[in-house]
């Protein structure tokens, strides 16, 4: 059950991240916008992170057959995803926050003190949670300004991913409980929610012009 959910989650994460990353890249090539460049890095990183973990599971299941994924592969995938989440949060912080306030930097360090004695994987899960929660709140605040319904889906998606990361991180307290599978289901729902507004982007109307990059 857990293996199946992990495979679905990581495959969905890879595909959704890749789709949004490619659309952002097309946007960057057409407009030269730095915001779209940061979104490209963010979602390609997220996609790559999910892909690394998915590959780890596939290699374990079909080649190594040891019964559990190599811990370093899982950690590597989570670190790459965290870089992606950082760029989402960073895009918002440039818009409204950074460098005027020290709040972001202080809450960013906080989880390191909380989990300093546990594995690196949990450190990065907790950082991901902070970054995703921050991104979800900032996106929701943007909704109150622009009233764009797509913003609600993205905010909800980031919020669900944050909740999933939190439960995934917290599950190390109760390792054999249902908490970890629930965290994966919540993250899959979050990824689908992220993809809904992006799927409505009318890319067919865009004529890609090499000279405009």
């Amino acid at each position, binding site marked *: 059950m857990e293996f199946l959910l992990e495979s679905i989650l990581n495959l969905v994460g890879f595909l959704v991240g890749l789709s949004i990353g490619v*659309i*952002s890249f097309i*946007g960057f090539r*057409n*407009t*030269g*916008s730095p*915001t*779209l460049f940061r*979104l490209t890095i963010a979602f390609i990183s997220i996609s790559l992170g999910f892909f690394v973990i998915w590959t780890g599971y596939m290699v374990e299941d079909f080649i190594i057959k040891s019964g559990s994924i190599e811990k370093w592969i899982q950690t590597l995938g989570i670190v790459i995803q965290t870089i992606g989440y950082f760029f*989402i949060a960073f*895009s*918002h912080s440039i*818009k409204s926050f950074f460098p005027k306030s020290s709040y972001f930097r202080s809450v960013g360090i906080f989880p390191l003190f909380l989990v300093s004695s546990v594995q690196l994987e949990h450190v990065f899960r907790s950082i991901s949670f902070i970054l995703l929660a921050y991104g979800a709140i*900032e*996106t*929701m*605040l*943007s*909704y109150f300004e*622009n009233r*764009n319904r*797509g*913003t609600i*889906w*993205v*905010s909800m998606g980031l919020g669900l991913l944050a909740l999933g990361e939190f439960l995934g991180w917290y599950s190390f307290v109760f390792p054999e409980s249902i908490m970890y599978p629930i965290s994966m289901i919540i993250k899959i729902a979050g990824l689908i929610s992220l993809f809904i*507004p*992006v799927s409505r*982007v*009318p*890319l067919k*109307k*865009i*004529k890609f*012009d090499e*000279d*405009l990059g």
Partner: protein
Amino acid sequence: MAEYRTHMKIIGDILSTTRDDLQDEDGATITYLIRKANISHSRISSILKTLVSQGLLEKVDNQSSNKYKISQSGREFLQAYNTFTNFADNFGLSI
């Protein structure tokens, strides 16, 4: 409080004016663009120069004054700009 506009947003406003809000068929004068895009003369001059060099605007030399018209590339750029503005809006960001 005045809304902060990114460089990209100002370019979008200038191109939109030259596409949708022209004074006449010859194009828009700098004075007209300054008023419509709400931007200073010194800043719009450098932006117009860049847009003409990139082929997004066409400069129409006139006896009385220079006028600017949107080119086909400019229309395509504006279409992409509008699409990806909505895309970035979904993430609560501006391009």
